[in-house]
């Protein structure tokens, strides 16, 4: 119980800290932020339940008024803005990433993490993300999907980095990778 609670708080803080990392510009001029990598890591390392709890904690404190979303955004205004679907989708994405990670225990950690981060952190996250954007900006689903495609290459890079980091952490601290524990 103590260990789980501390790790949940730790990953919530990691996601917040990644939001403060300066943006990296892709050649297309689209900014990529490290924050969604934290969502993926929460899933691949903590597993479904704890990963979702860590991300939910981060989202709750952001909505409560801490400016922790990348770009210093926060507060309830996020729920009324166009990125509402992504913010609500963050815990779901972490849960899905963790769920897939736990199901793929027969595969090497790095490969399992790459698949889990891609499906959970990109495909699953984009579903509520696109839906929220479509609703807030009054666009159809394909139109909203078109608006976010520039972010796709950045997210693929983040899934790869997540896989490499998860693999390295598993090698150095196997006991800290909850998604690979037989609980």
């Amino acid at each position, binding site marked *: 119980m103590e260990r789980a609670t501390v790790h949940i*708080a730790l990953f919530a*803080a990691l996601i917040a800290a990644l939001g403060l990392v300066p943006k990296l510009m892709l050649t297309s001029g689209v900014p990529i932020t490290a924050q969604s990598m934290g969502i993926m890591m929460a899933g691949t390392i903590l597993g479904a339940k704890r990963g979702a709890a860590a991300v939910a904690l*981060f989202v709750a404190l952001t909505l409560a008024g801490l400016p922790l979303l990348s770009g210093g955004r926060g*507060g309830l*205004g996020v729920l009324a803005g166009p990125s509402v679907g992504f913010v609500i989708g963050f815990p779901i994405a972490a849960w899905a990433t963790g769920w897939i990670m736990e199901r793929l225990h027969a595969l090497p950690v790095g490969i399992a993490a790459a698949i889990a981060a891609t499906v959970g952190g990109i495909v699953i996250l984009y579903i509520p993300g696109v839906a929220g954007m479509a609703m807030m900006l009054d*666009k159809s689903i394909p139109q909203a999907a078109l*608006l976010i495609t520039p972010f796709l290459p950045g997210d693929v890079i983040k899934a790869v980095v997540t896989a490499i980091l998860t693999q390295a952490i598993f090698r150095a601290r196997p006991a800290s990778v909850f998604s690979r524990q037989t609980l």
Partner: protein
Amino acid sequence: MLALTYSPQTRLHAVPAPIKLTALCAITTALFIIPTGWAIMILGGAALALYAAMGIAFLRAGLRTLYGLWPFVVVLGLWHGWQGDWDSGILIIARLVTAVAFANLVTMTTPLQDMIACLVRLLRPFRRLGLSPNAVSLAIAMMIRFIPVFLSRAEQLKMAYRARSHRSGRWAVIFPLALGMLDDADTVSEALRARGGISPKE
């Protein structure tokens, strides 16, 4: 850590947080189910009046928080300009800005502790599902404490890296940072358990 709360007290700071949150829910719902220009104009005007009633400095701080919406306004403007459909474009932008303005108003006038108190209260029904309110409160406090620890540890690792290399080391420190923090988490949980652990009761 700087919260988004506006620090000089205004009359809205005195309104209890649950009332503000309920009102915000009602206004936002109204904005989305009555999509007429009049309704949005009246509510938008009301938001502006509320900000202005709290003073010029407050109004200016409020407008600054809305500034982050500009990329969406540009995208919507281009889109509807291209479609030649200005009316609905302006309506959507006005609705978006109004909804965010009301939400920011609540954030700016409600201290973080009040929001967290509301949050913990909202989570109370989940106690039956095994969600301990003590664990939630502790996790909130620990997360807020961990953020500056993360940042200063990253800075230290970067300085150490620069002493050894001519590169900036922005990426090279990620892995040692993660390992150090995971070890810290284990130490913290041991320390918590040694002090009696998290009590499941309130």
